[in-house]
């Protein structure tokens, strides 16, 4: 292969990537449900950022005279508390608005760390192989053998409740999937022509990984990250539901559902409404992720 041929192949591969990115919006718009998911997701994010301005009440303010008020559409409800109040007279709507902060932060941060750790380790293992790869691969198989929820409960029991402990507990196992994806993708990319071209041009290993391979496998990682984020949010809510997630003074949807459990006979709204907030958020993330997958990564589609 001559030098100019090598350069040509390299330029083609990066041009292809740019072209794909440019095409992205045009194709993404054709998935109405995915667009809807994105719009709802953006609303949730705005809600989390501007919570103090939107929420009608202080989420932790108790009011004994207004205990267990139903939502305003039901008999006995008032417009002052649109979604009703809980057993301490706290406003459900305000708590749901503030609760979006925990869910979104946990989802985004735990996925970001998992992707980062999985990406770096997976890239090194997949590119250099050898002893490092063997050790990490065995360790990842070991972690895979644990059911996710038990594992996180375990780690939370060791660390105790708290926001950052929760992040550690969630990422402790979640990086593995990204590690395996990136490692596999890199190993298959390595057999392709453009890598040989880059080598022939005298690029270093680090340059080949960061400049050539990463852009090419970035899409599949992004898709997996989106689809896993909903799962992280559900797991966080499950842990909070069991009383071992974030500390009880922080409004979180899982905690709110658990709070309402004793009142399902006469105040169904305490449990069901925060849960509905989780369902809508996770549903819109999944719809968005599914659309991303259709547009970016047809290979993953086989399911």
């Amino acid at each position, binding site marked *: 292969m001559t030098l100019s041929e090598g350069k040509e192949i390299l330029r083609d591969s990066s041009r292809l990537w740019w072209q794909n990115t440019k095409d992205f919006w045009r194709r993404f718009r054709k998935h109405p449900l995915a667009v809807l998911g994105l719009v709802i997701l953006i609303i949730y994010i705005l809600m989390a950022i501007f919570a103090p301005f939107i929420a009608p009440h202080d989420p932790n303010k108790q009011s004994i005279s207004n205990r267990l008020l139903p939502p305003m559409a039901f008999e006995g409800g008032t417009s002052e508390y649109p979604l009703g109040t809980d057993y301490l007279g706290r406003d459900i709507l305000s708590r749901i608005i503030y609760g979006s902060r925990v869910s979104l932060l946990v989802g985004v941060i735990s996925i970001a760390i998992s992707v980062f750790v999985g990406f770096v380790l997976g890239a090194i293992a997949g590119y250099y192989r050898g002893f490092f790869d063997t050790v990490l691969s065995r360790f990842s*198989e070991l972690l895979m053998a644990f059911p996710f929820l038990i594992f996180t409960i375990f780690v939370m029991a060791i660390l105790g409740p708290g926001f950052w402990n929760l992040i550690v507990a969630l990422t402790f196992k979640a990086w593995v999937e990204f590690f395996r994806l990136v490692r596999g993708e890199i190993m298959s990319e390595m057999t392709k022509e453009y890598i040989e071209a880059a080598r022939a041009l005298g690029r270093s290993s680090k340059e080949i990984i960061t400049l050539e391979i990463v852009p090419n496998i970035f899409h599949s990682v992004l898709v997996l990250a989106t689809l896993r984020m909903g799962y992280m949010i559900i797991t966080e809510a499950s842990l909070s539901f069991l009383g071992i997630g974030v500390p009880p003074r922080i409004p979180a949807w899982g905690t709110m559902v658990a709070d309402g459990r004793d009142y399902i006979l006469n105040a169904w709204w305490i449990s069901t409404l925060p849960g509905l907030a989780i369902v809508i958020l996770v549903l819109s993330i999944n719809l968005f992720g599914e659309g991303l997958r259709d547009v970016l990564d047809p290979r993953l589609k086989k399911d």
Partner: protein
Amino acid sequence: MKKIKVLERILATIPLMLGVAILVFVFMRMLPGDPVDIMMGDSLATEAEMSMIRESMGLDEPFGSQLLSFLGGILKGDLGNSYMFNAPVKDVILRALPATIELALAAIVIALLLGVPIGILSAVKRNSWLDRITMGWAFLGISMPAFWLGLVLIILFGVNWGLLPTQGRLDHFVELKTITGIYTLDSILTGNLEAFKSSVRHLLLPGFTLGANLMAIVARVVRSSMIEVLEQDYVTLARAKGLVEWAVVTKHALRNALIPVITVVGLQVGVLLGGNMIVEQVFSWPGLGRLVVDAIYGRDYPLVQGAVMLYALTFVVANLIVDILYTNLNPKIEL
């Protein structure tokens, strides 16, 4: 498929399980708090008595020798004694296991009974409004936290309509002689119709809650593999022979479309087990999941170790079976 490959895979699970055992052991010892303190609670035991108990449980020995005796015990099939129940871990687990197995089986049955027909209908009536609605529901199924779905079902079917029981495994007035501990099976074996009805009714809500996720996944997988199969030549041939569409689907396409379902169900066994503790909590189901959570907080080292080993083993074995089945059904794939 080569027998040697299968043997290799089976042997490979041994170091994996050893790793699981060590990891669980180390994790348990990292938990803050001393099991004897927690066990004694507010009792007035003296320091000397406490250290005697510690000694009798082997907790005074160095870390390494505790680990070795734990691993040695596993080889002999001895998982030690549970601190909380003061009984062999094996017995405690075996007592809770049937309830968990019954719930998991119910979830799988419900998921298949609903998921497979939904998937077929969607594939046959592809892109119709029916397809859209069912796939929308399937999407909802993977986006719902189990604890929320469980509570909503309890409110609707239990509190509002009073149709189905929401707590426990059997009505309190029903008597049942247990043989296997799986109540539906036991009631059939003893010919106890009343107990059978009661236990099935108790299984419906928790089974659906646990199976909702799997149902959604099954429906999606059946749909996509059915669509693929319906485009194959032999299906076209069957149609050309003048077979009714329904006969084409059930006789020719379904068998092949169901192969991926086996894989999915097998791979989800681990997820089902992991999710059971939430469902067991919501429906007061006396199974392994609730036991493990209690045991972690009670610092019952041997019980947690035994239970987690069992979870991991189930997961690893399920994966192995899926791989072997898959290569048998589809010889093109290498193990």
